C-alpha cells in the first residue's frame, strides 16, 4: 500500500496523528505530513484506520502490486 495526503484538503483535525503517530505528523501550521508513505504490518493497519477516520478526505490509499 502507498499512502497519499492531499495537503490542500487537510483541515488539521489531527485524527491521523492520534491514530498512528509513527506514520502521520502535523507541521507547525497543523497540516498533515506523511512520515512514512509505505507503512507495514500493524502500522499499515492503523494507517488504514486513520484514512477511514480522516474527516476531510485528505488521506487515501493506493494499493500496489507486491514486487516480491
Amino acid at each position, binding site marked *: 500500500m502507498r499512502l497519499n495526503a492531499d495537503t490542500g484538503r487537510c*483541515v*488539521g*483535525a*489531527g*485524527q491521523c*496523528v492520534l491514530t498512528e*503517530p509513527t506514520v502521520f505528523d502535523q507541521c507547525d*501550521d497543523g497540516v498533515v505530513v506523511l512520515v512514512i508513505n509505505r507503512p507495514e504490518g500493524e502500522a499499515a493497519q492503523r494507517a488504514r484506520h486513520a484514512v477511514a477516520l480522516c474527516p*476531510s478526505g485528505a488521506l487515501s490509499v493506493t494499493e500496489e502490486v507486491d514486487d516480491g
Partner: protein
Amino acid sequence: MTETASSRLTDTEFPVQRECPFAEPVEYEQIREQSSIAMVRLTGGGEAWWISGHEQGRAVLADRRFSSDRRKANFPFVSTDPAIRKRLHAQPLSLISMDGAEHTQARRALIGEFTVRRLAALRPRIQQIVDQCIDEMLTTDQHCADLVKTLSLPVPSLVICELLGVPYADHDFFQEHTATLVRRNTASEVRQHSIDELNAYLGALIDRKLASPDDDLLGRQIARQHRDGTFDRSSMVSLAFLLLVAGHETTANMISLGVVGLLQHPEQLAMIKDDPDKTPLAIEELLRFFTIVDSVTSRVATEDVRFGDTTINAGDGVVVSGLSADWDPTVFADPDRLDLERGARHHLAFGFGPHQCLGQNLARLELQIVFDTLFHRIPTLRLAAPLDKIPFKTDAAIYGARELPVAW
C-alpha cells in the same frame, strides 16, 4: 421541498428532547428503523431532512454540495429566535457557517494552535489545573460537592481562558451568558442582551490585545492579522466568541456525563482505573454514548443529491443527528450498552467533514486527565442523588447536567 405532509413518516417534531442520558429518544429509533433519511417537521418550525443513519450522516457532512451557511434560506434552525437570526446577519460569518475555500483559509489560520504535539505540551498545566480543582473539592468537611461547580466547569473554562488569553477572573460573567445562550427556551431579548454583553466584553479585550499583543491564541491571531493587514475587529470578536463558548460548555458537559456514566458502570470504571492506557478508547465510547451536540451538524443542499431512492433537492435543509448516528445499531451493536472497549473512534460526536470539531483533541486531553485523576484521588466518589433527581439539561442545545451532586 419534494415531499408533502402526507408522505411524512411522523408528525413528531425533531430534534426530540432527551428524557435521560442513558437512552436516545424513542422517536429517534422509530424513525431510523423506517428510513435513514426522512422528511420531518422541526421543533423550531419548518421542515428538513432528518439523517438518522451513521453512514448517511458521514456522507452528508463530508459532501461539499451541502452548505454550512446559516444565513441561507431553509437552513434548519432548532430555534426561530430572532436574536439568533439578527446576530447571523449583523456579524461577520462565523467559522462554523463558512463553506469551501473561505472556510479552509479561516480554519488554516487556527489549526496550528491545535496540533496534537502542541496540545500534548499543555498536559502538565492541565494536570495542575485538575489537581487544584480536586484539592479545593477535598477541603470541604461535608465530603460532598456539586461536581459541575467544582470540577466540570472550572477545568475547561480555566484551560480555554489560558489558551485564548481571556482573564479567568471574569468567568462568572461569561459562563452565565454562555449558559443563557445555549438554553433553548431563553427569551429572545434576554439572549440578545447576553450576545451584546459578550460582544462588548470580547471587543474590549481584543482592543487591549491590539494595543499590547500577548503571547496567547487571540494575541497571536491579532498580531498576525495586523501584520498581514487583514485585521478585522468584528471577525476577531466573532472568532473569540465561538472559541470561548465552544471551549467550555461542551467539555464541561462531557465531564459531568462521563462521571455519571462511569459511576453507573463500576466494573468498567475499575478496568480503566487498573489500566489508564485504556482511558483514551473509553473516552471515545463515552463521547459516542452521550453525543451531547445533536443538531448543530445541519446543512442546506446547494445541488440535488441522490441517496438511494431519495433525492435531496437543492435548497432543502438537512439535519444530521449525531446522537441518532451514534446509536445506529448497524454500526454500533447494542448501542444502549456502554462498552468502554468497543472501539468507537468513528462516532460523530465531533461531527465529520471539513467542519469537524477544531478543539476535539483538546477535549480528549482534558477528559483523559480529569477521569484518570478524579477516580484515583477520590476512589470512593459516588453520586449523592438518585439518577432521576439529577437536573439534566433537557432544554439546552448542548446536553449535560446543570448540577451533579457527588459525595465521597
